[in-house]
């Protein structure tokens, strides 16, 4: 029996989860939500996490009904993500790892999403579409690496959605993407937007500047509504993602797609709570890594804002 606690706080969600052999024992989380029209900045986000992290840690233990002695390993997000929030979370993970005398494990955030997705869906060897505010990658497993088949060459699809939400000043509660999706349901007019697939990769910053411009012109002239723009943006973005995912599936001869990351919540409400950043996904990846013999020495436990998915040796799969 192996029990792992996982700490996640690379963006605006701070979550701590405990997993025991594939069972999620607890997974409390808090989200830092900014006013409409504003994104979240690293120092403010770190301050938010710092204020709540020890409370969330207590909750994770209490809700799981466990004591620190019951934990076998402390996993935390090494990266990628925002520097200041990553440090805040790593500090607590390193400290409790030493207080409790348990080994530490630095986890790649993207791999956390993938391993949680594999746990929940029990998919055999899917093509993974990882879409969030910070990342957009199409990934397939091959020979001990999660290989990136395609990715964004500029901003993440979630970042495009979040920044468009700011332009039309919709609420960030519970998330800008969720509110865009609700508005899109009421859209009736399709507005043509640039479609920018580049081979295996995608680009979103061109669409963003186009739609920011279109929003100012077309909304003031009454040519279309915000709902129409939300609808058109979603359709364009998701068509592009489908194209690069299908391309990767054709290359890999794969029949299944696993969608992970916060943007995956869109239209896929079932796995809602695990798509969004959470501590249990870090615990799950940590569980796999720990059982295959990996450990992170404290001196090597520094956080990193850039950390590519294919940098990690996937020692827990054949």
């Amino acid at each position, binding site marked *: 029996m192996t029990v792992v606690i996982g700490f996640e706080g690379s963006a605006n969600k701070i979550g701590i989860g405990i997993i025991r052999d594939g069972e999620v024992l607890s997974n409390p989380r808090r989200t830092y939500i900014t006013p409409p029209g504003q994104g979240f900045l690293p120092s403010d986000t770190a301050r938010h996490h710092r204020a709540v992290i*020890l409370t969330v840690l207590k909750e994770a233990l209490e809700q799981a009904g466990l004591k620190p002695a019951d934990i076998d390993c402390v996993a935390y997000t090494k990266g990628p993500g925002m520097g200041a929030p990553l440090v805040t979370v790593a500090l607590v993970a390193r*400290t409790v790892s030493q207080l409790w005398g348990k080994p530490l494990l630095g986890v790649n955030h993207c791999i956390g999403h993938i391993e949680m997705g594999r746990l929940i869906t029990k998919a055999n060897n899917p093509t993974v579409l990882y879409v969030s505010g910070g990342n957009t990658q199409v990934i397939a497993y091959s020979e001990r690496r999660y290989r990136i088949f395609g990715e964004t060459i500029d901003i993440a699809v979630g970042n495009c959605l979040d920044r468009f939400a700011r332009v039309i000043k919709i609420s960030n509660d519970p998330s800008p993407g969720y509110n865009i999706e609700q508005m899109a349901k009421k859209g009736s007019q399709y507005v043509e937007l640039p479609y920018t697939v580049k081979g295996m990769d995608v680009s979103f910053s061109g669409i963003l500047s186009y739609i920011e411009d279109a929003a100012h012109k077309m909304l003031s002239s009454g040519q279309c509504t915000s709902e129409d723009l939300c609808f058109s943006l979603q359709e364009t973005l998701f068509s592009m993602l489908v194209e690069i995912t299908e391309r990767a599936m054709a290359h890999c001869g794969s029949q299944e797609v696993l969608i992970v990351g916060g943007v995956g919540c869109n239209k896929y409400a079932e796995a809602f709570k695990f798509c969004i950043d959470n501590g249990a996904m870090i615990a799950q990846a940590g569980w796999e890594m720990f059982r295959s013999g990996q450990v992170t020495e404290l001196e090597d436990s*520094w956080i990193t804002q850039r950390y590519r998915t294919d940098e990690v040796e996937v020692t827990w799969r054949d």
Partner: protein
Amino acid sequence: GTPRGQGRATQLSSPFPVCSLDVPFPSSREATIALRSLSPDKEPRKGGISKLITVSGSTLSVRWSADEARILRVSVNSFLDHLSLVMETMEMFGPPVAV
């Protein structure tokens, strides 16, 4: 007991501002835990600041030197936030288990 720190920032006759901080902990073990939690991450700023954290007995010591007072302030403030988080964590989830 709650550790208390003593620090001073000095502008010397040299143009390089320095700061020193000494934080007593209840034990050498706890000071070392704090050291090992606080030292792995690199300074966000690539140049213009250097920081050295050491433990002697049960005291954690930090020595900074920077190119400008402004850079020094940012690093010291950030460190104090981090130190207080580590200390709060140790208070809430300590004492360390027997080795």
